[in-house]
């Protein structure tokens, strides 16, 4: 008779490990299965870890975890070819514990985190692919792995298998993703000495900066580029919806070179040594792309449930929060001795009531609006650059005329009515 667990968690990223950790802490018998050589070996993210949701899993984790820098400044750049208009919020309080958020390197962090779950009593098996869920009488009762005699059973299976979630698709919870529902993102880790990073980003040893780049960073396509500071390296990446990548016939590795060589970016990375190149998909479909979240004996968490807020580049926090809510649902189900679809349905309610459901609902129309209305990235960002640059170019024109000129930059090219309509539309999807 094969071994039986209370819970099997498929995947050892932030969502799966949050769930495994919480369940193990509650005394449940947990098996976590990871397909990579070690947790994190298949995982990629820009690098922002949100303290609040991580702390809910492991209090004061920062004292022990491999975090890079505490983020004290968040910059946004609207890029044109040879200019930019920027905003920044810097707050040194974000460096005081408990910090707002941190940069991390996932291969290091995920190993540390999964090991915490192991210390809590969870059993971790690496280098094992789950091929499918075992379904008996309409109930998920375990998983079939690619190991010899690889069937394992449990009362509940948690699918934390990432953006592609082949397992959820096999269960019929999910249709195949469409190119406009995912962002193809590539990233390089660029080594630079600590003091050079400090000088170029105007920070001290433990302070970090995030920069999000819009406009010319994606050649006007729907997406962003980013530069995040680690202790002794930068994570520089760029991504657009896969549909934009296809439409514009862009090669991702050429696009990242375009960003690296952009006159506004280049001075920041001058002399850096490339340490790693990584590609990954980000689920960007939002609320409408969320699959069925629960079934008889099964729950979906994290990227597998498409829980990413693309507008605020939040994902790892939603992963951790969903893993935690899944664990709470499972612990309650264990007490009841009932893992039916009806009992597990409280997970969906909890998700929708939490910031995950609320935020994904808030921006539910944002992604496809910007996908269908490319003018925001393609036209308006260059226009803002032209208007601001012309306003600040001292050439003997009176300030009143400068003002008129700046406004005309928009109304002449687009017409007043179109500008007002576009502003209203943007407000509507972001409000």
């Amino acid at each position, binding site marked *: 008779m094969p071994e039986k667990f209370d819970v099997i968690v498929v995947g050892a990223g932030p969502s799966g490990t949050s769930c495994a950790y919480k369940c193990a802490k509650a005394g449940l018998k947990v098996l976590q299965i990871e397909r*990579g*050589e070690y947790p994190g070996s*298949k995982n990629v993210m820009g690098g922002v870890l949100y303290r609040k949701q991580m702390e809910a899993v492991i209090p004061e984790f920062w004292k022990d975890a491999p975090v890079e820098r505490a983020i004290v400044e968040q910059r946004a750049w609207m890029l044109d070819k040879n200019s930019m208009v920027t905003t920044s919020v810097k707050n040194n309080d974000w460096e005081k514990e408990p910090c707002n958020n941190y940069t991390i390197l*996932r*291969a290091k962090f995920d190993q540390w985190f999964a090991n915490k779950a192991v210390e809590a009593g969870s059993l971790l098996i690496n280098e094992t*692919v789950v091929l499918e869920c075992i379904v008996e009488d309409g109930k998920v009762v375990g998983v079939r792995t*690619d190991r010899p005699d690889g069937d394992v059973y449990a009362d509940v299976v948690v699918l934390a298998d990432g*953006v592609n979630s082949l397992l959820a698709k096999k269960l019929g919870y999910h249709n195949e993703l469409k190119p406009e529902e995912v962002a193809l993102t590539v990233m390089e880790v660029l080594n630079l*000495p600590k003091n050079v990073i400090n000088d170029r980003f105007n920070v001290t040893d433990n302070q970090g900066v995030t920069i999000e780049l819009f406009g010319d960073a994606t050649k006007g396509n729907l997406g962003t580029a980013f530069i995040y500071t680690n202790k002794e390296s930068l994570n520089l990446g760029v991504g657009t919806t896969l549909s934009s990548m296809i439409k514009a016939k862009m090669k991702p*590795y050429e696009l990242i070179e375009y960003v690296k060589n952009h006159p506004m970016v280049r001075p920041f990375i001058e002399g850096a040594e490339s340490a790693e190149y990584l590609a990954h998909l980000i689920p960007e479909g939002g609320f409408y792309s969320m699959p069925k979240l629960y079934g008889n004996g099964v729950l979906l968490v994290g990227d597998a449930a498409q829980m990413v807020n693309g507008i605020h580049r939040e994902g790892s926090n939603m992963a951790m929060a969903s893993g935690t809510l899944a664990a709470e649902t499972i612990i309650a189900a264990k007490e009841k001795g009932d893992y039916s679809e009806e009992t597990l349905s409280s997970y969906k309610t909890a998700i929708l009531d939490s910031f995950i459901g609320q935020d994904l609902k808030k921006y539910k129309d944002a992604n496809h609006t910007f996908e269908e209305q490319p003018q925001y990235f393609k036209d308006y960002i260059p226009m803002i650059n032209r208007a601001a640059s012309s306003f600040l170019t001292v050439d003997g024109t009176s300030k009143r005329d400068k003002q008129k000129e700046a406004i005309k930059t928009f109304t002449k090219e687009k017409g007043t009515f179109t500008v007002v309509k576009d502003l209203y539309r943007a407000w509507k999807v972001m409000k």
Partner: protein
Amino acid sequence: MEGDEIKMEEKKNAQTIEEKQYLIRFKADTESHLHVLSHDVCIEKCPDKLCTIFCPAEVYKWEDIRMHVGYEGCHECGSCRIGCPHENIKWEYPKGGHGIVFRLG
């Protein structure tokens, strides 16, 4: 500091896809986890050979009459499965413990 700058000049900035791929550790399986279902579909229905453009690792290369699949350098991102306009790519994960091994990001 001037001395620092000179040392930094010697560091390697990976520019081409070949240089980028060279930075990564792969534990390649002996068989491919990616399969083009029909090369005829590529020939007859796909003049742009889109996968050869958007694949972030240049896994797909068109060779006159067939698609060459360099699965050994795959990042397992899933773009080709989703982005192939003819759903002509069968996509699985490599065997447990195989494929790409990220060390950092």
